[in-house]
């Protein structure tokens, strides 16, 4: 442990700082307390100029000698310990492994430090925000759950990965895509198309849509993970590629778009490096069914949850643009939502051959 050659990293210093808080408080007979920024709608604000969701300065205290917080406090220290272990050993790990690493039964009792992963995940997020350290910096990775295909070449651990030569399966986007882990060697695409659903990404990849329209196809299989968002941002930033988002026409699709564009409420502190304020909403728009003559019978009735969520979205600062209010209202008025897959009702290749070409040609998107 002490034989490591690496210098103590900044993150490790921050983690050790937590132990110092405890020690200092104990010295002065005070209740050890951590300050943790609040990760909720109440503590975020929309910066219109930057087009980003930014985290406010509200903090919550987590004290040890408070019955309600004692366990959380103890868990925070344990996770900090595990994270610093990762730093020293220079390893990356998953959220689940951290859960297992920190789980044990407390001595002389039959209480576990953690009962489920649901208890350890938020603690890790707490540490991310309170130490202002990125998850990658904490050496915690998420699952690889994104794919990319198109005229772009990466250098990954010294291997050359040409995403134009990976068939229809493409390259699996790693969860950490910072320059020191993933190098973008070359990119000749004209734009990035981020698709919500893996199934539609497969359709486009199979049809070689990216070759015809010279673009990069990205998917995150639902809510895109950090790796995918960060990669899109890098392509956008480093190669000046416009980013278009293709999602289902439902409140959840809208929100996915907004997370890509402005950042999420939960991880607002990461907006700075993840959000793509210039991203455009390509579809499916609530205007499309009429435009593209989708029959009513391929729609799905909005349920109560959908309606509640849609109304919630309308209240978010970043959905206040008139075009967006109209978009959501139109969906609520029709009472229907549409999946991307519904386009197959017209033709299996309708998305590739008709829908997207027309959208691109008419520059029919929402900002």
């Amino acid at each position, binding site marked *: *442990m002490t034989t490591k050659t690496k210098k103590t990293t900044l993150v490790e210093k921050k983690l050790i700082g937590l*132990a110092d808080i405890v020690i200092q408080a*104990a010295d002065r*007979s005070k209740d*050890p307390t951590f300050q943790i920024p609040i990760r909720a709608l109440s503590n975020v604000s929309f910066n219109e100029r930057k087009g980003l969701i930014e985290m406010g300065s509200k903090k919550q205290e987590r004290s040890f000698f408070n019955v309600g917080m004692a366990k959380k406090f*103890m868990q925070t220290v344990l996770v900090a310990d595990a994270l610093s272990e990762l730093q020293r050993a220079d390893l990356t790990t998953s959220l689940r492994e951290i859960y297992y690493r920190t789980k044990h*039964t*407390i001595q002389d*009792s*039959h209480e576990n430090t953690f009962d489920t992963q649901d208890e350890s995940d938020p603690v890790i997020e707490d540490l991310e925000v309170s130490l202002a350290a990125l998850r990658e910096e904490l050496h915690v990775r998420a699952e690889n759950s994104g794919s990319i295909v198109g005229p772009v070449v990466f250098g990954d651990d010294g291997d050359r990965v040409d995403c134009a030569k990976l068939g229809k399966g493409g390259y699996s986007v790693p969860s950490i895509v910072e320059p020191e882990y993933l190098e973008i060697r070359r990119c000749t695409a004209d734009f990035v198309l981020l698709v919500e659903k893996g199934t539609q990404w497969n359709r486009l990849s199979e049809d070689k849509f990216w070759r015809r329209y010279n673009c990069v196809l990205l998917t995150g299989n639902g809510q895109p993970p950090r790796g995918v968002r960060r990669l899109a941002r890098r392509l956008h930033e480093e190669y000046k590629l416009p980013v278009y988002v293709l999602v289902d026409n439902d409140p959840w699709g809208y929100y996915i778009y907004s997370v890509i564009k402005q950042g999420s409420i939960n991880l607002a502190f990461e907006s700075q490096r993840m959000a793509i304020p210039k991203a455009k909403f390509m579809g499916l728009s609530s205007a499309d069914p009429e435009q593209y003559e989708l029959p009513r019978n391929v729609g799905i009735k909005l349920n109560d949850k959908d309606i509640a969520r849609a109304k919630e979205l309308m209240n978010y600062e970043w959905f206040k643009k008139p075009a967006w209010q109209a978009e959501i209202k139109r969906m609520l008025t029709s009472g229907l939502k549409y999946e991307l897959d519904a386009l197959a009702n017209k033709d299996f290749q309708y998305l590739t051959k008709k829908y997207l070409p027309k959208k691109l040609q008419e520059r029919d998107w929402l900002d």
Partner: protein
Amino acid sequence: MAQKKESASETESKSSAPRLTPEPAAKTKAAAKPAERVTAVEMGARQREISVSEFFTKNRHLLGFDNPRKALLTCVKEAVDNALDACEEAGILPDVTVKLEVVPNGEPVAPSQASRFRITVTDNGPGIVRQQIPRIFAKLLYGSKFHRLRMSRGQQGIGISAAGMYGQLTTGKPVKIISRIGPKAAAHFFEVQIDTKKNEPLVHENKQIDWEQPRGTQVTLEVEGKYQKGRASVDEWLEQTSIANPHVKLIYLTPERETKEYPRTYHELPPQPREIKPHPYGIEFGMLLKMLQDTKSHTLSGFLAGDFCRISLQLAEEICKTAKVSLSAKPRELKGPVAETLYKTLQETKIMAPPTNCISPIGEKAILSGLYKQIKGEFYTAVSRPPAVYRGNPFIIEAGLAYGNRPQDQHKPQQPAMPKAEGEHEEEDSELARVIRYANRVPLLYQQSACSTFKAVLSTTWKNYGLTQSRGALPGGPLVIFVHMASVWVPFTSESKEAIADYDEIQKEITLALRECGRRLGLFVRRRERAASEFRRRNIFELYIEEVVEACNRLKGGTLPKEKLKGQLQKIASARTGGQKTDDALGKTGGGPEGLPHSIIVTAEGVEGETELATQVEADQATAAPTAEPDLPGKTASTDEPAPKEKAAKENRAKKLPKTATKSGQIALFAGESGAKKKPGGRSTKPVKSVAPRKPK
């Protein structure tokens, strides 16, 4: 019209006379109509009287002999009820022995497999005069209890003779009785059977014998039955009997040849219930007609004032005026519409509620004593409601609760500390409360859900009192709910006396009693929770300090002075959870059961509340248990006077008056270790004072 009236008066007379008079001929005729013609004369030839005994031979389920298991219980119950009623009426503290033996039918078998049993119930009661023995035991509907309005266990005079008849029916064996009315009299032995056609006793054997008991009665029945422990068993019934009758000494010799002893823990006889005259609101028209015929008065006003309670001569005159009947009319001549008007007037006149001294409740102290004796709990409370009236019958509802586990038992199951995997939880206590129901001190074991008491328990919102309760279910937790109805006439839903009928007045009283008990329990539960949460706080911090210190040490690369940090944190922890305050909440310092009258609280430190009662119970149990150590005086020393048991009992009796006079009866006392058997050393040292000394740490 006339027919309708007849059948109405027939149901009317149900409460006063056997309703097994010959079926009205009209009915039979109606049924036979569509078939081939039969003349009335032919039919008349077939119509004859049905004897009560014959009727019950065919309908034995009506009396609680539906199946062998229940039949065994019913036989024991009838014999014990009779014994207790007799003792109490004679003013004798009852000593009852119940013996159940397997009667081998060929090969000897295990009690659970046997099908034939001999039941012997012996009491120390007044005995029965020789001439009455056959009729009491071998004639249905014969006895002293039916014709008077007085609270007793038995009501109809069916019970023991029905049990005898059941035995006779299933085994052919007669009932054997030994009875002796005093040391100077001879003991008589009888063997009797019932002539089911005539409902008359047949005496098989009648002789004088030598009997070791100076006084009392012994009944032996041989019946077909099934012995099975558990719910609604003989064992359970006897145990519950002992709870509601702590003044009874009960010895039970089980078929497995064990001896279970339920000692007497309350040394006073319940006050003698008085006999009352019927209240006008409680009678029905047919009953009135019968009373008019039977009365000894020669004038109507005399009859009204003399044969009913709560009617003065003045009121009688008023009633006669309203009913437009002459004051001096001869009661025997009042019939038809005139009698009907009189009945209506009686019901409409405002008459004072009946006197209530005819009921003898068990009493809060005795209930506490019974519960404390039989049920191991942490908290006990009892409530006796003031008397109330339904349909002219006075009644009293009493309720009690026993809750929790004894402190010494609480720690046992928490020992196995296996690390828990994801998804595994602490095993939750899904145990539901148990309701024990009584009518005139007799436990009711069957038809719980049909019983008014059970319904009242369900409709009480136990959540208000700190318990869990799912919709329409019993409350959860280690709880025993005791409900007793004492009345001159308990309205059962059937002749087998299994469930109390659902009168609004009764239901209301039960609910009120339960609520009062619940409120006290709620106070106790909340107080304990407060203490537990303080305790948990302290525990939590102590538990986590270790973890936090270890993690900090690792973060600091193993260079931390661990012990120092731990010490500092522990100091903060105990400062934050406040030693003094916690001790208060944990009940370690004085206070007693605030606002909890008639309650006992058992803590690890001792007993609070009605301590005297608790010590008494334990002393009695100790003498009863053959293993008890002989240093009892040390224990009674805590009452400041080393009194033997008898004396303590007398003292109790003497103290009773002033205590009830203060009404609140709130006694806050602390006793020594309640777990005396575990720690024989520490029991006699602690003094009993109204303010307990703080325990030194």
